[in-house]
């Protein structure tokens, strides 16, 4: 096997001291790391480059653009975008569009970030997070401790992040857990990680739900080595959610149920409402 050093070195997760160059995108890999094949280059992303292909016909991100572009497509523009770029929601890749599909003749400049650049918007975070997890694995012998550290760090981030979120998003108070779920998935995740997970699997009592992340920006280019099978790589997210919700008077339990790093098809986070946190007045101040 020869490695061509042609891209992003992984956050060195496969082995802490060895540099593994990224496999070329397009090669399929039987180890199930399907992620690698989906990020294509060159990206259509520079500010003066061609605008976004309105190709994701089920993608909510671009749904509002559909009426704008209409159904008027042309072969020539379709050829331009045949190099598939997966839409940020991880939904239909453009290359799956039927061959007769037509693109509009003249694509107006897109004011939204292009599919490629949405990926980039979390790269620095992804890389730094990878370096952090690698360091923690060096410092702590077993995976459970690392998981706990990640959760604690996430909690510290969450209790501060909530203020920034409330200031920037201007959402009002949520009246029930369903509203909270919507805000988390559609506003918070979008704002900070550029993805919109879907909400499913509500419990009958309405106090538990699942967030399904088709693609998790934290795990781009990451593969779990065999000796870290019980590591919950993205555990920081659980801490962030727990900490942030605690600051708005909600005690929740957050955990990963499925993880693409462990071979599952999607990443699933289960959130369970425990109780409302009442403010405790100091003794004697009733």
């Amino acid at each position, binding site marked *: 096997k020869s490695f061509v050093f042609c891209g992003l070195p992984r956050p060195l997760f496969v082995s802490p001291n060895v540099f593994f160059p990224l496999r070329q995108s397009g090669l399929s890999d039987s180890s199930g790391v399907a992620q690698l094949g989906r990020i294509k280059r*060159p990206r259509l992303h520079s500010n003066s480059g061609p605008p976004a292909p309105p190709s994701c016909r089920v993608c909510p991100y671009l749904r509002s653009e559909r009426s704008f572009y209409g159904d008027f497509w042309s072969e020539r523009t379709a050829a331009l975008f045949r190099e598939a770029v997966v839409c940020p929601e991880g939904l239909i890749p453009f290359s799956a569009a039927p061959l007769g599909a037509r693109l509009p003749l003249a694509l107006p400049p897109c004011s939204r970030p292009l599919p490629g650049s949405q990926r980039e918007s979390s790269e620095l975070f992804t890389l730094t997070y990878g370096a952090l997890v690698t360091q923690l694995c060096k410092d702590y012998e077993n995976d459970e401790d690392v998981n706990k550290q990640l959760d604690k760090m996430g909690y510290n981030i969450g209790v501060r992040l909530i203020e920034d979120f409330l200031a920037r998003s201007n959402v009002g108070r949520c009246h029930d857990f369903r509203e909270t779920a919507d805000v988390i998935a559609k506003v918070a995740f979008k704002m900070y990680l550029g993805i919109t997970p879907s909400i499913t699997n509500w419990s009958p009592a309405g106090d538990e739900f699942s967030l399904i992340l088709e693609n998790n920006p934290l795990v781009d280019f990451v593969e779990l080595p065999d000796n870290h099978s019980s590591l919950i790589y993205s555990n920081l997210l659980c801490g962030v959610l727990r900490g942030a919700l605690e600051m708005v008077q909600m005690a929740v339990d957050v955990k990963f149920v499925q993880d693409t790093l462990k071979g599952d098809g999607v990443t699933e986070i289960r959130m369970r409402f425990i109780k409302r946190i009442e403010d405790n007045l100091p003794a004697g101040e009733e």
Partner: protein
Amino acid sequence: MPAMADETLFQLLHTQVVAAAYGAGRGSGDEGLRAGLTVLEGMGFRVGQGLAERLPQGALAFREELDTIKFLCRDLWGAVFGKQTDNLRTNHQGTYILQDNNFPFLTQMAWGQQYLEEAPKFLAFTCGLLRGTLSSLGIESSVTASVTSLPACKFQVVIQKA
């Protein structure tokens, strides 16, 4: 370059990264401080290398060393911190000083001299980031940082001649 991470989230993560570098009983006192700084600089180095790999190839054909440093000041700073460095000085012999009067990782702490001792911890990652980016661009360097009064700081980049 488009912004590479939500700023607030990245700053909060960086604070936790600094805490992690000093956790796990790395020892206290000067030695512990230095060990932590080394860890942070190493992390920044790898992140910098990774970032440089993601840049569009056409943008990296710099004719001169000075252009590379200007790229750091403008584009890399813009992508990571959302702003540009305030001042760049050079002696035209391989030493460059990047000055930032309002460094994002230091703005949340008390301005002035109160936390002068703690400040290096929050600069080590960025030093590594610069060194890593330059290394990916084919330039070996050594990067140090100095603070006299928060939140202004200076990064000194010394290019190693082959």
